[in-house]
């Protein structure tokens, strides 16, 4: 059991794969670029579809990490993987070089930077925020505009940075719709007579109980869904937002004034992941995510034998899928190590 496994990325995929492997007795070291593990899970307060508190899931990870004795190196980002002999060596930003028999990449995703959609005015207009900003507000307990007032009319713009050729992301990030519906309900929960609008192209509510949440949002919370891609946003003299959209089901343009606009940012390949791929000649797909060796039965294998992939570094996934995908890497790694002898 002297084989050495290196996990790159301390998000939930890395933690899951790392803990399971080190639980099997392998020598596992996990490298995380930031000073905390758990990745994006820390930014989310309540999780869809049942709006359970994310701290419960974080507790789960703390426990499996401590139980399995997984060794974690924080504040070190891995920049290159090079094959040497029948193993690999990785190079960190602090100039360290570490050998390993097998590498599991779990670099995860980055939330799309909403400022890249200029016409929506993120970072320019005071009350245009992103879904993660809103989630932080939920954690703080109140939704507040820049002028400190509570928004009476809130709008959610779906597909920001996804399914959008102008920003180079043709794919659908799968989770922004259900997140928008969840957050819309939470806005109404905090202020029952607020008006909430969701501007969508298609409602993609594909997971378990997502569609039920959508029905609840409509019937019980009275959230109105307007089918149309928001074209541009302007700011009025009192810092409200004018949204221009066409109500395609009615076939007419619609102008609406809102107190706050939330942009549902999509998921993109993480920047460090991209750098690592380029430096290590790992194949990435047209959607810039790591390209799995085979979509159906080889989604954990990268283009280099011995380098494995886990979690959202391959494609947008929700937490359940990420954990299952990370667990799937463990037997692959073990088989690989056994065969390597």
């Amino acid at each position, binding site marked *: 059991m002297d084989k050495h496994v290196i996990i790159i990325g301390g998000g939930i995929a890395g933690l899951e794969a790392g803990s399971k492997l080190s639980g099997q007795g392998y020598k596992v070291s996990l490298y995380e670029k930031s000073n905390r593990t758990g990745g994006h899970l820390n930014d989310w307060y309540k999780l869809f579809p049942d709006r359970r508190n994310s701290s419960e899931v974080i507790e789960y990870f703390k426990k499996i990490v401590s139980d399995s004795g997984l060794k974690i190196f924080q504040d070190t980002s891995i920049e290159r993987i090079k094959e040497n002999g029948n193993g690999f060596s990785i190079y960190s930003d602090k100039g360290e070089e570490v050998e390993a028999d097998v590498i599991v990449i779990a670099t995860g995703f980055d939330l799309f930077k909403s400022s890249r959609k200029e016409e929506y005015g993120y970072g320019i207009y005071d009350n245009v925020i992103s879904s993660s900003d809103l989630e932080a507000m939920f954690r703080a307990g109140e939704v507040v505009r820049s002028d400190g007032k509570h928004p009476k009319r809130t709008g959610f713009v779906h597909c920001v940075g996804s399914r959008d050729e102008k920003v180079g992301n043709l794919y659908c990030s799968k989770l922004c719709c259900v997140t928008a519906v969840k957050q819309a309900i939470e806005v109404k929960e905090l202020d029952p007579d607020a008006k909430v609008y969701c501007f969508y192209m298609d409602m993609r509510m594909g997971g378990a109980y997502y569609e039920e949440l959508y*029905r609840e949002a*409509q*019937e019980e919370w009275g959230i109105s869904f307007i089918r149309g891609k928001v074209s541009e946003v302007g700011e009025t003299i009192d810092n409200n937002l004018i949204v221009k959209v066409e109500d395609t*089901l009615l076939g007419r343009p*619609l*102008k609406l004034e809102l107190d706050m606009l939330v942009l549902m940012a999509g998921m993109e390949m993480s920047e460090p992941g991209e750098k690592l791929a380029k430096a290590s000649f790992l194949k990435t797909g047209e959607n810039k995510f790591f390209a799995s060796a085979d979509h159906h039965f080889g989604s954990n294998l990268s283009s280099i034998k011995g380098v494995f992939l886990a979690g959202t570094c391959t494609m947008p996934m929700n937490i359940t899928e990420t954990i299952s995908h990370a667990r799937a890497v463990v037997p692959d790694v073990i088989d690989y190590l056994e065969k390597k002898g």
Partner: protein
Amino acid sequence: MMDKFGFSISKGRQINYESNDRSIAEYISEKEPTFRLCIECGGCSATCTTGNFTSFSLREINILLKRGENEQVKNNIRKCMLCGKCSLVCPRGVNTRNVVTLAIQAFHNSAGHAV
């Protein structure tokens, strides 16, 4: 004005959400919450008996009311024969017959006095 300049300022097709009167839609959804469940799939207008003869579409009426474009609905809503095929087809279980009845009631009331 036309005579002076030979043309007039064209009226935009843009729906001004704020100034439209959505009291009829609110009246309906308060008494029939399933009205809010409509996802505009068009199942109802596809099977509609009246829709067979005219451009009457319950899907369009739903959204017109929700956007406050009541004028168009007012002179169309009575064309519904209340036969109920739409409620049998609706994937969201919208109580369509009650929506039509409440709409007629609301128009009747607002014609008589404020709803």
